């Protein structure tokens, strides 16, 4: 069903003028708009269908929890998105299905229900798991280069770029 639906929408988009112009660079679409002959159309549909399956279902999680108001729900979403799951470290607490992530989500939920502030919840977790649990590390001597390194790199590159252009112009 979703497959057919996706196919329909995509076809319409490709044949419309905006879509044609916009997607002209996609080979299959270009084929459709220019020659009305499509070589690997089905393959493309299949690809898009596969991508659709992997779109993260961010709101499935909140169904498990009942919030008194939208603000609490928003806080919960923000906190679980900003905190790292320590078991599977490239996922945040909202995404992870690890047992510890579930436990920590429950803790955060309970604390929100008990009117504990965001700051206190974060402090509670940092006290136990360290700064590593934060996806946005705090600014201190250890993380100084992490925060300012990229800016420094950008500035030196810009400086060098202008220096280079200036020299070329003179030559």
């Amino acid at each position: 069903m979703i497959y057919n639906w996706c196919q329909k929408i995509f076809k319409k988009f490709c044949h419309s003028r905006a879509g044609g112009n916009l997607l002209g660079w996609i080979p299959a679409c270009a084929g459709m708009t220019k020659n009305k002959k499509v070589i690997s159309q089905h393959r493309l549909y299949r690809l898009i269908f596969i991508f659709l399956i992997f779109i993260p279902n961010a709101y499935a999680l909140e169904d498990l929890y009942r919030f008194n108001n939208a603000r609490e729900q928003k806080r919960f979403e923000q906190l679980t998105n900003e905190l790292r799951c320590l078991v599977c470290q490239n996922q945040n607490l909202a995404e992870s299905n690890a047992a510890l992530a579930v436990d920590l989500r429950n803790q955060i939920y309970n604390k929100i229900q008990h009117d504990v502030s965001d700051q206190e919840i974060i402090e509670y977790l940092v006290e136990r798991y360290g700064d590593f649990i934060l996806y946005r590390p705090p600014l201190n001597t250890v993380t100084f280069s992490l925060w300012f390194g990229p800016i420094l790199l950008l500035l030196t590159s810009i400086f060098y770029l202008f220096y280079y252009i200036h020299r070329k112009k003179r030559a």
Partner: protein
Amino acid sequence: MKVFKSIRFIIPLIIFGILIVFLWRGLFLKPNLVPSPLIGKSAPSFQLHQLMEPTLKTSQKDLIGHITLLNVWATWCVACKVEHGFLLKLSNHRDLMLYGLNYKDDATKAKEWLNTLGNPYQMVAFDPTGEVAIDWGVYGTPETFILDKKGIIRHKVIGPLSMEVWEREIQPIIRKLQMEDA
């Protein structure tokens, strides 16, 4: 300026070299070992039932008065089975108290495990919900905390214990603690 021109080609090489050093070091980093912020602090307080004597309770006060290894384990944890043999050997150590924290487990299974494989622990706390473990910053099993006589956390080992880990990480700390007491 002329000198600069002649050595200019080295600059990318230097940048490449720096990059290589960082990447090479990165190969041997262990990001799954998260340093515990609890080191140097006293043991988080807790109140739990004992696994073997469910009518009795245990708390952080049981950790005071001796050098303690607090070992977090569970029957569903494969690596815990790996380290179990070593823990049994360690239970003969006269200066150490081996304290178990049974994490998110089933009491019957846990008791059966200790009865069949042998019980290295002097005392085991039973934490079926894992709430106490969260207070200790546990994020995986097995984890082992080393506490001094005052009940202050001095070190944390993540992963299974073995003779190698003992010699490299634990024994030096225990020696240091013994020196402090002497």
